[in-house]
């Protein structure tokens, strides 16, 4: 498993180099890239049997998560990790739960599309097939040409990943009760205010869930993390091979956390109360409730209803 992770990291690096041409196509229309990325994001043709799109797991209506512990792959392969939300994902690096090398959205896109550990969309070795499927659609042909004129709209993994990244960088949410309070608006009150004080004080949450995105982007091991996890996921050690990295996972952002249950890297905590217990914080039920109220003030339901993120209609964005 760990060896496979190293190979995945190497492969990711090679793909980054290959994709740089598409990603740096300065003459391409940024607007077209976003429109293309949105269309691709919702397209089941990015999976081997047409059953999974990016949005199957990163459903905008669920704050770009999916509400299950670990989503199975295109052929029903067992999932390994809980789907993280994509809210403000353009501000985060590294990405995902357990790979410090996945520093860009372009790199990360290939993990679900072609990855084998586990298989998600099952498209390893299917670059020509993906190009065949997409080029059969006149709207895609136009959008790829408008997005990547330097390669005359070449359809390949690199251009697909670049467009997906462009779209994902538009998934931005900084309009919560907490953001408004931080900007000088009405302060948090009651349980939420008490919860923030606990979050930043006694409970020690802010040590890792730091900054505007509530993550330090570092890899940590929770006190209750088992030595031998039931699902065989050793976290960062899958990639580094270092025993000291066993059980270490990247701190997730807490934006819209109340909308993205279940929690933790394996989706094993159904509620925020269960998550707090797994962190080993000595909190009374009332204190845990206050922290949960504070986390509720990190919700932005506008992002879940924003038409700009929904599946596009049949009408093509470019003429």
């Amino acid at each position, binding site marked *: 498993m760990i060896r496979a992770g190293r190979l995945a990291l190497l492969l990711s690096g090679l793909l980054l180099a290959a994709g740089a041409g598409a990603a740096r196509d300065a003459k391409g229309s940024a607007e077209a890239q976003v429109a293309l990325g949105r269309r691709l994001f919702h*397209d*089941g*043709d*990015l*999976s081997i*049997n*047409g*059953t999974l*799109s990016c949005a*199957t797991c990163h459903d905008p209506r669920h704050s770009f998560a999916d509400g299950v512990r670990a989503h*199975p792959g*295109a*052929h*029903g392969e*067992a*999932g390994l990790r809980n789907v993280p939300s994509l809210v403000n994902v353009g501000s985060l690096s590294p990405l995902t739960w357990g790979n410090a090398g996945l520093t860009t959205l372009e790199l990360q896109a290939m993990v679900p599309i072609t990855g084998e550990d586990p298989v998600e969309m099952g498209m390893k070795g299917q670059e020509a097939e993906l190009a065949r*499927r997409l080029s*059969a*659609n006149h709207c895609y042909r136009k959008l790829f040409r408008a997005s990547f004129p330097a390669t005359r709209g070449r359809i390949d993994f690199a251009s697909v990943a670049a467009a997906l990244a462009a779209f994902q960088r538009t998934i931005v949410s900084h309009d919560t009760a907490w953001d408004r309070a931080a900007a000088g608006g009405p302060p948090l009150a009651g349980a939420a205010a008490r919860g923030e004080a606990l979050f930043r004080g006694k409970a020690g949450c802010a040590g890792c869930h730091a900054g505007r995105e509530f993550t330090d982007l570092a890899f940590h091991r929770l006190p209750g993390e088992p030595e031998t996890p039931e699902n065989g996921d050793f976290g960062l050690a899958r990639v580094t091979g270092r025993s000291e990295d066993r059980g270490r996972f990247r701190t997730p952002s807490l934006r819209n956390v109340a909308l993205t249950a279940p929690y933790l890297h394996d989706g094993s905590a159904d509620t925020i109360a269960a998550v707090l217990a797994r962190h080993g914080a000595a909190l009374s039920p009332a204190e845990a409730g206050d922290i949960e109220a504070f986390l509720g003030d990190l919700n932005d339901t506008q992002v879940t209803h924003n038409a700009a993120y929904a599946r596009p209609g049949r009408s093509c964005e470019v003429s």
Partner: protein
Amino acid sequence: MGPNPAACTTPSAIPTDLAGWSAAHRAIKAAAKSSAVGKALLVQGVAADVALVPTPKVAYVAEPGKPGGSVSYGGLLAFDVAEAGRYRVAQSGRSWVDVIVDGKPSPSVAHGHGPDCSGIAKMVDYDLPAGRHLLQVAANGEAALTVMVSAVR
């Protein structure tokens, strides 16, 4: 998810509500358009081995929540409900299903997996009025899918 089907050495006991799953199946071709769905009629409590249609050929009445890519399969089926109540759509795959009532997808009221090793991968429940209803199947990975509609008791 249940256990890997390959790990299932003996069939699982099927609850009485789903007994038809273990009995003889009917073979049905899904319709590609709603006007042809009369020939794709499911019988309640009887499992049907459905031959689906390539997704690009299917004219859905309402756009499925997950429509599937061009290489996936889908189709339209119908079933009759004599008495209003809760009904379950069980299937061997993980396709997206909608029951269309008055031209709109009826909201589902429960989701679940079938019993381990039963061959039922997914079940979705709906509260339905009496009448003939359209069942939309979308985003299936294969052309073959076993489907059964039964009353929830």
